[in-house]
């Protein structure tokens, strides 16, 4: 079995079989992570560059760890300045790195479309680690993995994504992936945070967090990103928490069987109360562990393709 595309640019248009294969492969690697010696020789001799044009700690560490667990050689290139401000163009940077004979590039960038652009200027396998407010496919995959791990399936499940859906790459990858796997997807947030035309993807739109909790099996709660100017779309974090925050009271009132996901980092007291963030309904730290397994699966499947 192998994937139908040699890059992972997003989950848009990725067939169900591919997602299934990645999730199943991740199960094997998840088991490796529980061993005393957490390393396999699968990608020995492969060179992977982590090209991060935007600040990231979690995703970069997770990818790096996944690469090391697979015995690949890893290089980190991080910069928070855009190529427009630096002397060198993005294309020249990539050409230089490629000249060092790399096999795979993991890329994060402020601009949507950079992973697609990379496929045109590089021969390496490209993995999108987040492009603008477009996609973050490995996050989508690890979210689906975490749901499947707990609830045993994805098909027919009701999943609600809560928060600034319009400015979230996590939301879009979740929507594409979950729809492909047969889940029912709802988005919940203030009207200023719901993307235009989202209903035409077969996604339901609601504005009540109580309804979201009452009528879904899973809530994937997004971080309110003040760094993405969320301040102009909501009056205050206090009002957001009051009307869209997930609290223990709401869960206990409406749905004690709900599963809570959050891509991190959490704004405690904003999208989640501290009690929920540490409580029995959430799988937030499992998501982090599963993230390594998912990234190992993606790297392995792409790195061993012919």
């Amino acid at each position, binding site marked *: 079995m192998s994937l139908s595309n040699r890059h992972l640019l997003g989950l*848009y248009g990725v067939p169900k079989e591919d997602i299934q294969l990645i999730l199943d492969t991740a199960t094997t690697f998840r088991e490796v992570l529980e061993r005393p010696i957490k390393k396999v020789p699968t990608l020995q001799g492969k060179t992977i560059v982590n090209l991060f044009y935007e600040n990231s700690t979690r995703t970069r560490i997770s990818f790096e760890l996944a690469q090391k667990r697979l015995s690949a050689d890893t290089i980190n290139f991080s910069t928070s300045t*855009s*190529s*427009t401000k630096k002397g060198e*163009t*993005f*294309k020249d940077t990539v050409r230089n790195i490629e000249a060092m004979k790399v096999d795979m590039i993991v890329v994060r*960038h*402020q*601009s*949507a*479309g*950079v992973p*697609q*652009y990379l496929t045109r200027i590089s021969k390496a396998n490209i993995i999108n680690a987040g*492009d*603008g*407010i*477009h*996609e973050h496919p490995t996050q989508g995959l690890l979210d689906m993995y975490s749901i499947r791990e707990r609830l045993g399936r994805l098909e027919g499940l009701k999943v609600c994504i809560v928060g600034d859906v*319009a400015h979230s*790459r996590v939301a*879009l990858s979740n929507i594409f992936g979950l729809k492909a796997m047969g889940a029912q997807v709802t988005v919940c947030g203030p009207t200023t945070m719901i*993307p*235009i*035309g*989202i209903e*035409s993807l077969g996604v339901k739109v609601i504005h009540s967090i109580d309804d979201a909790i009452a009528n879904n099996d899973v809530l994937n709660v997004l971080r309110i990103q003040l760094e993405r100017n969320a301040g102009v779309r909501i009056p205050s974090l206090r009002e957001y928490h009051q009307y869209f925050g997930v609290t223990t009271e709401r869960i206990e009132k409406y749905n004690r069987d709900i599963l809570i996901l959050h891509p991190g980092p959490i704004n405690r007291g904003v999208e989640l109360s501290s009690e929920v963030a540490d409580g029995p309904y959430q799988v937030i730290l499992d998501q982090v562990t599963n993230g390594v397994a998912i990234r190992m699966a993606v790297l392995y499947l792409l790195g061993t393709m012919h």
Partner: protein
Amino acid sequence: MKIILKQVRLLNPEQKLDKKDDLLIENGVIKKIGGLTETDFKSSKVFEFENKICIPGLFDMHVHLREPGREDEETIETGSNAAAAGGFTGVACMPNTNPDIDSAEIVRFIKEKSKNHLVNVYPVAAATLNRKGEALSPMFELVESGAVAFSDDGTVIKTAAVLRSVMEYSKMFDTPIIEHCEDDSLSDGAMNEGLTSTLLGLPAIPNVAEDLIVARDIMMAEFIGARIHIAHISTKGAVDLVRQAKKKGIKVTAEVTPHHFTLTDDNIKSFDTNYKMSPPLRTRADIDAIIEGLKDGTIDVIASDHAPHSIEEKEMEFIYAPNGIVGLETTPGLVLSELVHKKHLTLEQAVEKFSINPRKILKISIPGIKEGEKADLTILDEDSIWTVDISKFKSKSKNSPFDKRLMTGRSVAVINNNKMFYEDKFIEI
């Protein structure tokens, strides 16, 4: 020197002229139409233009020639060459150069640089100093030195108060204000807002960003009694606003670019920055409204918004890449392929929109096809099938999304200022 255009279709809607005949040009002036003698034929260079159409020279009222300031992207000379190759005998160049065209000195510099060319270049001057939207540009001296209109193109005239002053002051010259209609506070995006921008995760610009300013400018033009020309109209809402305003008798005119009636935001799915424009490519519904507006006369002009950019600048991450494409060498092909052959416009209507009307708006005399007139002509071949090849562009920049596109119809020759451009070269006539 004498040349003869043999059995060419002479078409000028302005003169109600449409007939097939021989045309004799001597020393750059139309000497005879029909009734040519054997001596005439023997003493002239004869062009066999049967099945070709001779019209008043095409005019592009919205181009960026980049000189002074960005001569690496285009110069007055290379831009004029591109205009001639595309089929134009006249262009109006926008003031967002470096320095801006906001002094008589720069206007004279451009006139001087362009004076020996086949293509006439008419500078559009900045409406405000440095196009900052604060103080008025010195309009008297700008007009006196040859500016034909005022615009802060590239950006909108910032406030209603400054717009009011610009309109009031410029009424003394009856020059149009050409406005780039986009509300700044809503325009911090890289593409049109809609389902496609949602799917691509790109920051987006809604139609209302344009509609708001078009409405503001129309109301101000009515209030002041000034002339406003809407540059590169792109939305259905703006077309509706212009149509209503014209019905009320407000002095408003509008232009559209070929890319805004040919391409949609769907093209951006490839993340090719040659589809990044300002205003952004819109949707099918907007194109349909634009075509309706072209048909019923709401949109007066087709102009290219020729915007050369270097490869290094354009080949960049999508959100950082500059807006715009070169258009002088693809405009007639797109007008004929997309509008005339698809029967949205008659050839006569098309000629009005990219030869006659822009000159009327800028108060430049319209070349006649009559004996005794200076020969300022474009020869079209309506049915020539050709493929765009950016490597053959005369423009210094090659940023076009139309590379390798198949087109039907093009310009085969232009004649103006005692010169002819034919078969890829300039000849003195």
